[in-house]
């Protein structure tokens, strides 16, 4: 809306331009005082998101997975415009979004939060919430607000009578439906769902996941799903991005992530998921040892090397970039990994290593 019009600086490289993309986006939070941080030999800034490139194509469902503290929620909030970025640019629909977004821009990317008990105003009825939104953003003419609200609730599987109810009168699953209706009220292009089911019971989770999946088909939504549950991700998403300590370490189509993970962290993450079949816990070592390092003391070089089973001396000095298989042409852009050894040998199976004698991994 103003001077920051570096629009079309570099356009149309890819055949289909991504709907929403992040280039070198960083978000950091100051922690304590500079002096105190220096005394603790830690950084003063907590780099929650540290130079992330990510693209979302129109109509796709992209998952963002990773441990807590990996920066996935912060990245999502930055994309939704709820968190100012330090560096980098966020492009939407072909133009760079300015630091303070216009109302029209904010409307296009909407968010559903994890906890439906704290993300709804307890003193407003559902109808009141929707009315406010629809009026402020002029989504529909005033005389259509009531009918449109009812349509929204029908879309998420609630009835018109629920318009006059307060959040406390709903169960957890129903509240999450209200939260989804609130996000959809502005007819967004992108829906960002931050752990939408992890606060819900198992049997209710399925209804919300199915709802999101149906809405995507019906409305052609682009969905960014943040989850720590890889089973949920596998069920719902087309592509998966794996985050570790503020960086994306691997991006690939869902089936490729699960069949041939390239990054050792992704492999460990997959191996750590409990399966329905009995007794995978058989006395062998854990999938990934140790705790993630503090984001105030990010290791030099590759940030996963402190827990990595195949770390080499090289990993201490060289920070691997997120890249596809070398020399594999355009198709390689589908599967990217930030590991020096990601594409060095054949399959992505738990392999020793490319070079000499690493059979002990």
């Amino acid at each position, binding site marked *: 809306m103003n001077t920051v019009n570096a629009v079309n600086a570099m356009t149309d490289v890819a055949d289909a331009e991504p709907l929403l993309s992040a280039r070198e986006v960083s978000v950091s939070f100051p922690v304590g005082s500079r002096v105190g941080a220096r005394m603790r030999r830690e950084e003063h800034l907590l780099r929650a998101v540290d130079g992330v490139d990510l693209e979302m194509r129109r109509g796709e469902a992209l998952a963002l997975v990773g441990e807590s503290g990996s920066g996935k929620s912060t990245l999502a909030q930055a994309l939704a415009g709820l968190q100012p970025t330090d560096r980098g640019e966020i492009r939407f629909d072909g133009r760079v979004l300015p630091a303070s977004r216009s109302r029209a821009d904010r409307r296009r990317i909407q968010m559903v939060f994890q906890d439906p008990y704290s993300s709804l105003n307890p003193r407003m009825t559902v109808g009141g919430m929707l009315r406010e939104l629809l009026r402020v953003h002029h989504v529909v003419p005033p005389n259509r607000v009531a009918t449109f609200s009812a349509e929204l609730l029908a879309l998420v599987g609630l009835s018109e009578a629920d318009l006059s109810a307060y959040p406390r009168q709903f169960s957890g699953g129903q509240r999450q439906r209200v939260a989804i209706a609130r996000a959809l009220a502005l007819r967004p292009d992108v829906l960002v769902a931050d752990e939408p089911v992890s606060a819900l019971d198992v049997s209710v989770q399925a*209804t919300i996941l199915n709802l999101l999946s149906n809405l995507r088909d019906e409305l052609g939504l682009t969905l960014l799903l943040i989850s720590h549950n890889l089973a949920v991700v*596998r069920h719902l998403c087309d592509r998966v991005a794996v985050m570790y300590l503020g960086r994306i370490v691997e991006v690939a189509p869902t089936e490729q992530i699960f069949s041939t993970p390239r990054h050792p962290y992704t492999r460990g993450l997959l191996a750590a998921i409990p399966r329905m079949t009995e007794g995978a816990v058989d006395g062998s070592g854990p999938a990934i040892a140790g*705790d993630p390092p503090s984001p105030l003391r990010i290791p030099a070089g590759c940030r996963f090397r402190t827990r990595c089973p195949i770390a080499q001396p090289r990993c201490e000095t060289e920070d691997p970039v997120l890249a596809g298989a070398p020399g594999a042409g355009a198709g390689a852009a589908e599967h990217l990994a930030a590991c020096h050894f990601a594409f060095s040998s054949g399959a992505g199976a738990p392999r020793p290593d490319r070079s000499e004698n690493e059979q002990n991994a």
Partner: protein
Amino acid sequence: MGTVTGPVSASILEVRDLHVRIASRRGIVRAVDGVSFDVPRGGALGLVGESGSGKSMTLRAILGVLPAEAQVTSGEIRLDGVDLRQLRGSDINRLRGPKMAMIFQEPMSALNPVTRVGWQIAEGPQVHLGLSRRRAAERALELMRRVGIPDPERRFRAYPHEFSGGMRQRVMIAIALSCDPEIILCDEPTTALDVTIQDQILRLLTQLCRESGVSLVFVTHDLPVVAQVCHDVAVMYGGQIVERGEVRDVLLDPRHPYTLGLVRSAPDFEYVRESLVPIPGSPPSLVSPPSGCRFHPRCAFAEDDCRTSQTPLRPLPGGRFTACLHYERTLEAVEADRACP
């Protein structure tokens, strides 16, 4: 095992017809309503169910730490042959630690924030085993080593807030093991943790229990987690156990429509379905539970007798139990699922 009265020594824990009532503004909540199970020595039993199914209340009743409004109204809880309900508070206190220990979901709120971690681990051995302060500290160090806390000499003097979530849960495990208990009661011990840390903790817990022969009762809502840790599982719904048996039978080949619903609605990692099948409706009110089978209002297979008859756990061939009157219907559904995945 339901109706069978086994030899006393075979089971470390026997729960018989346990009832827990909670007084609330809306009336009496029948939180646990006739629950019976045994835990064999060295065995691991999983209690699974959704929130409000009574699984945590069962655990708290066993340990004797029910909230003030809740009360065990009838039933027996026998720990190593001793009925805990007949004991006075101080006698039960003496059992907590050397006989039974508990691991809670949120270690940060279960640990004392102003006491050094090492001394929290050493407290049990000092009080219950009569160890001197120095011997207890040595024991704490050894336990910290066993549960995989790096650099125990230095971490001994740390406070809980200096530990990560996974490390705090390791401290909880060390405290639970500190007096060599016979049984450890776990209330969702890994729910607050990341998958990679959950994986570490589950492996540690099963390995330690196997080494020292401790029995486990493991409460969780996560079916795959139960499959990793437990041999037997009891599925709870509306304050009652609806199905019981070995993990691989119950989870992979259920005989109760609620278990089937749980399995179908959970996105399984190995097996991607076209769409998840949720359980319709919502859990029953425990103030005025439905008549007959408590699951009948949400059950696709419900018939007239489900609305009226009592549905106690009945034995099936293969040493398993179901509360369903028409479990054959579930069997058919499971087979149909298998035929067209």
